[in-house]
């Protein structure tokens, strides 16, 4: 392999790599604004200038190919001077409005001004003024003055989103970004440009001014919008989710996530329709009762039916752990009618990330044991049987069947007993006799298996009544660390909800099945011991990047661009 020496460190590289790539691989970070590992090279910001021995001038590391025996200095006086000069140049027309800019705290320009600039400007003339608060698209706000013309957003829409919607217009210091005439920047991936914009020129209309980045805690999670399972970070302030951002995982979603997933998969967690505490139906009304009372009623009523009259509906929205214990309970009771509903939105997909299956865990639910066995009925058959009153009792795990359509709602109306685990009140809970509040994806540990068979971890980002940020090792902002019960910010809403696997395990005790687990991790351990698909997997080896489930034949996940 050819070798290059960067700052005295000898590094191996692959032919065709640029200096910046070779350096990154070797753990050396060369400052860059316009370069992005997933985009084409544009070379316009000039901050990555480095000194190469035997070359008369400094070269830009992002577009200069590394060569065997090349000796590069990234911290020589000449490079530092050049970097400072570039910073001074970029800042000439920068409005320096960090106090009102959402990017502050995660801004490359701020960071580099601090690290690579001496902080003196010789520019005394009036700064150039451009349009601020321009609505580029339904979800994107653009501030012309902050833009440093790096062209990342343009290259992203063109090369990744496949929609050539943005362009530069004008020249020199008047250059600015706009959409093509009559076009709106409205593809399903626009919000990724907010993430990659090195400054605060592009901001999210949804998240705008909601919170400073340093006021939030960030927790690794997975998007629940479709079966791609894009890796995300959940940003929380005052126990309320403020935004989702994509987390890099080359094999699943690279650096990106879609706008649909980013904006529509977290608001229900803090919605006023949240189910807060268990309830049972008395004289047509749902009334709040204790956990014990609700579970006792669920147990007593389920005992009234023959097992052939009962069906269990698992859920592709619940974790593998939830579904696993649910299936164990069904097996223990001798209920063979067990399946789950698919949520396929035919035609609603694209060539980048979004998939038709609008659930995060259909493969996981199936692998964990939610499928009809010993001649049990499948989901469609169960619903048919409900209509003709052959099935009289349904136990549904976190799914809104009535929401699937009128026909389903009418069927649920015919049941003698309906028990549901629900995160939010929905059409199905309208028919329920027992509603058990389940923790949302952002409130629990668990595993989702995406369409390609990658098992991925969920971690709790917000607390419920029974969890505690510090004791449960959740990520904490400074506010969480020092807040007391007398501080208003520490009083964000917390719901009386529990992870479904815990509810099922509590109910199982009443049926004489001892599913005694303290933590989701123990449930998963049991799953991996009893199920060949999860063999050898645990929370640690699944880690941040996920791990493939075993013994299934699926198309090998194709690396996304």
């Amino acid at each position, binding site marked *: 392999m050819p070798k290059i020496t960067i700052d005295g460190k000898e590094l191996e590289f692959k032919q065709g790599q640029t200096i910046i790539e070779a350096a990154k691989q070797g753990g050396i970070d060369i400052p860059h604004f316009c370069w992005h590992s997933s985009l084409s090279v544009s070379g316009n910001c000039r901050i990555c200038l480095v000194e190469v021995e035997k070359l008369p001038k400094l070269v830009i590391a992002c577009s200069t190919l590394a060569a065997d025996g090349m000796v590069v200095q990234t911290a020589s006086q000449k490079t530092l001077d050049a970097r400072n000069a570039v910073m001074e140049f970029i800042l000439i027309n920068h409005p320096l409005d*960090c*106090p*009102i800019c959402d990017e*502050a705290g995660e801004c490359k320009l701020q960071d580099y001004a601090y690290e690579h600039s001496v902080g003196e400007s010789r520019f005394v003339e009036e700064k150039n003024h451009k349009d*601020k*608060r321009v609505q580029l698209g339904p979800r994107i706000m653009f501030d012309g003055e902050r833009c440093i013309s790096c062209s990342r957003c343009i290259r992203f829409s063109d090369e990744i989103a496949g929609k050539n919607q943005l362009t530069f217009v004008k020249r020199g210091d008047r250059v600015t970004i706009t959409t093509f005439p009559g076009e709106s920047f409205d593809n399903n991936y626009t919000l990724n440009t907010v993430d990659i914009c090195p400054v605060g020129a592009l901001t999210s209309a949804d998240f*705008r*001014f*909601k*919170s*400073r980045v*340093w*006021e939030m805690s960030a927790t690794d999670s997975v998007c629940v919008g479709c079966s791609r399972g894009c890796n995300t970070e959940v940003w929380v302030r005052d126990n309320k989710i403020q935004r989702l951002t994509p987390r890099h995982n080359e094999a699943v979603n690279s650096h990106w996530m879609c706008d649909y997933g980013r904006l529509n998969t977290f608001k229900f967690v803090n919605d006023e329709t949240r189910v807060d505490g268990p309830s049972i139906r008395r004289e047509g009304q749902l009334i709040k009762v204790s956990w014990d009372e609700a579970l006792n009623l669920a147990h007593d009523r389920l005992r009234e039916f023959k097992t052939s009259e009962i069906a269990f509906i698992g859920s592709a929205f619940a974790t593998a752990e939830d579904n696993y214990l649910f299936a164990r309970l069904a097996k223990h009771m001798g209920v063979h009618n067990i399946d789950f509903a698919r949520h396929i939105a035919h035609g609603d997909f694209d060539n980048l990330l979004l998939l038709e299956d609008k659930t995060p865990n259909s493969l996981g639910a199936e692998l964990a044991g939610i499928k009809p066995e010993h001649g049990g009925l499948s989901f469609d058959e169960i619903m048919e049987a409900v209509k003709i009153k052959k099935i009289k009792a349904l136990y549904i795990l976190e799914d809104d069947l009535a929401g699937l359509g009128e026909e389903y709602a009418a069927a649920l109306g015919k049941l003698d007993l309906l028990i549901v685990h629900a995160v939010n009140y929905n059409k199905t809970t309208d028919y329920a006799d027992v509603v058990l509040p389940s923790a949302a994806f952002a409130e629990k540990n668990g595993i989702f298996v995406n369409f390609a068979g990658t098992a991925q971890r969920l971690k709790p980002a917000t607390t419920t009544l029974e969890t505690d940020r510090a004791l449960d090792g959740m990520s904490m902002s*400074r*506010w969480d660390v*020092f*807040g007391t019960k*007398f*501080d*208003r*910010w520490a009083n964000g809403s917390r719901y009386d909800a529990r992870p479904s696997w815990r509810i099922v395990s509590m109910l199982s005790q009443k049926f004489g099945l001892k599913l005694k687990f303290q933590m989701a991790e123990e449930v998963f351990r049991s799953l991996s011991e009893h199920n060949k698909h999860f063999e050898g997997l645990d929370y640690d080896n699944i880690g941040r990047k996920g791990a493939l489930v075993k013994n299934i034949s699926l198309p090998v996940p194709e690396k996304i661009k």
Partner: protein
Amino acid sequence: MPVKKRKKDLNLMENLYIPEIAKGLALTFKTMFKPKVTMEYPEVKFQPPASYRGRPVLVQEESGVERCVACGLCSRVCPALAIEVRASETELEKERYPEKFEINMLRCIFCGFCEEVCPEEAIVMSKDYELVFTDREDAIYGKDKLLVPVANLKDRLEFLRNFK
């Protein structure tokens, strides 16, 4: 500091007590004829100089709008976590304003860091030292109590321009 003597170390004069008592009384009488420095608070109120750090307040412009742009820096720098800011968008040119701005006066230690860090000169230390509350909730001052017209803060703003 005078060294405290043990009884066994006292000399004869000190052991007699009378001269020492006379000395003490002399000091008392002398002070009686000096001008008084105590104030009869609350009938008479102390007027602090501009350098005084009373409770932090928000500067309200003549237009009635607060200067604050809800950048959150004061909240971040505050060592006591006394300040909670929530931003929102305004049609005004400044784009951002604090929808909610609260200082918990039970947390505040009057260090003045918030004033020092503010990029807008929007939060300043006032001359107000009269802080009385009867419960914890009362001690959390919202915008209603924090906003003070700029005219009433001239002293402090001038002081900051000269010495900050």
